[in-house]
């Protein structure tokens, strides 16, 4: 079963050109572990009951066809149809409710060392890291978290309802305009996971995703420190074209005059695992394609097409963006 799910997940990943796990059944987080156990308990319980009912059906249809006395039939209905389901459902409900505090550990969330603010937008994710010490760090379409540490996520939406979900790490949580929802996650294994938007949010809903990267705490801290300062390539010549063609009025790139806040922050876009909110591999070619015709790659996105620019300029901008490590 697990293998089948992995196989289908793998083929989907190949189709989307994205490398990373997304199965609920391969948990890599404390919450997802509980959800996976709940799934297997429910599945095996359901399978046992189903087999029992089918066996009883076959038994009475094939092997024991004599009529039951009315009283014993009533007794079977009372015990098998009323008492057994009531007690079983009561036990399953109690088990699921007992899991709830562990799945939504809000009590500890206030003491989390790291808070990540994620805002859903049509059709990308704005991400701000707020460590307990140090300045906030802005990013987009990628969430990195330290393994073995509890992280608090503050979830918001700027336009319509989105839903935040990293299947191998935990359950879903909606992002609702005007509300701030909280989610707390703890990765237990390092890896790259895919997070889809889990609530229909418009034309490119299916193309709205992000990658979640669980890293060793030390590597995470040095990564975060590097993200807080402008990328080394930020001052290079390709950046001049970026600014001249007006990209900076929507995008922010630290260390340059690009100060727009409408589109994703591109300060370290070259270091991300994907571009276009989880749909394209981060290659120069993909970046150039996105700049030229974002409307083809992501219908309904607010970024206009820039295919009127000389191809050489698009290439230079793409190369410069890839260099923002």
């Amino acid at each position, binding site marked *: 079963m697990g293998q089948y799910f992995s196989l289908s997940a793998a083929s989907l990943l190949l189709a989307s050109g994205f490398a990373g796990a997304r199965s609920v059944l391969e948990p890599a987080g404390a919450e997802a572990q509980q959800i996976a156990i709940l799934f297997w308990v429910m599945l095996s319980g359901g399978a046992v009951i189903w087999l029992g009912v089918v066996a009883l059906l076959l038994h009475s249809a094939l092997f024991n066809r004599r009529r039951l006395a*009315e009283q014993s039939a009533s007794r079977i209905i009372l015990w098998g149809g009323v008492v057994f389901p*009531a007690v079983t459902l*009561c036990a399953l*409900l*109690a088990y699921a409710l007992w899991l709830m505090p562990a799945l*939504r550990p809000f009590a500890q969330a206030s003491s989390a060392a790291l808070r990540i603010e994620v805002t859903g937008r049509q059709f990308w994710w704005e991400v701000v890291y707020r460590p307990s010490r140090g300045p906030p760090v802005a990013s987009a379409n990628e969430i990195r978290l330290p393994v073995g540490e509890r992280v608090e996520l503050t979830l918001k939406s700027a336009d319509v309802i989105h839903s935040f979900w990293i299947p191998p790490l935990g359950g879903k949580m909606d992002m609702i305009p005007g509300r701030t929802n909280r989610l707390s996650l703890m990765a237990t294994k390092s890896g790259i996971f895919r997070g889809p938007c889990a609530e229909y949010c418009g034309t490119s809903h299916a193309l709205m995703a992000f990658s979640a990267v669980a890293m060793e705490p030390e590597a995470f801290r040095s990564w975060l420190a590097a993200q807080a300062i402008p990328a080394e390539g930020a001052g290079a010549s390709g950046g001049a074209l970026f600014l001249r063609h007006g990209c900076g009025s929507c995008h922010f790139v630290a260390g340059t005059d690009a100060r727009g806040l409408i589109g994703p922050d591109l300060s370290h876009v070259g270091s991300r695992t994907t571009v276009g909110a989880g749909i394209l591999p981060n290659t120069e070619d993909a970046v150039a394609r996105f700049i030229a015709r974002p409307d083809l790659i992501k219908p309904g996105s607010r970024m206009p097409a820039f295919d009127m620019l000389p191809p050489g300029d698009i290439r230079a901008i793409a190369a410069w963006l890839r260099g923002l490590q």
Partner: protein
Amino acid sequence: MRLIPKEIETLWTLFTAPVVWVVHFLACYVGAAIYCAKPELIGLSFSAVRAGIAAVTVIALSLIALSAWLAWRQWGFGTDDPPHDDPTRRDRTLFQGFATLLLSGLSFIAVIFTAMPALFLTGCIR
């Protein structure tokens, strides 16, 4: 004044248990929602909310048990087997008693399911 009411024939007794279920459901959910939205309005801790839910649950289950007992009595304590489908006054009474008994059973389980989260939740979310 008698403690247990005399047997009365009215359709209203049929609804007693589901109505208790409805009132209990609203008390639990509306109570918890108001407390979590405005804790300072009530000024009590969450364990007081849980205790309140426990209290209304005990009351609701007692009322439903009473309704079930009255229905059982109306059903003649199970002397006759269903279906009670003869066009007689006796069968009508037995049918009503039996239906009320079944509804009481359903409401009893539903009230337990409604109250169960209070056993496990220890605080408001957010």
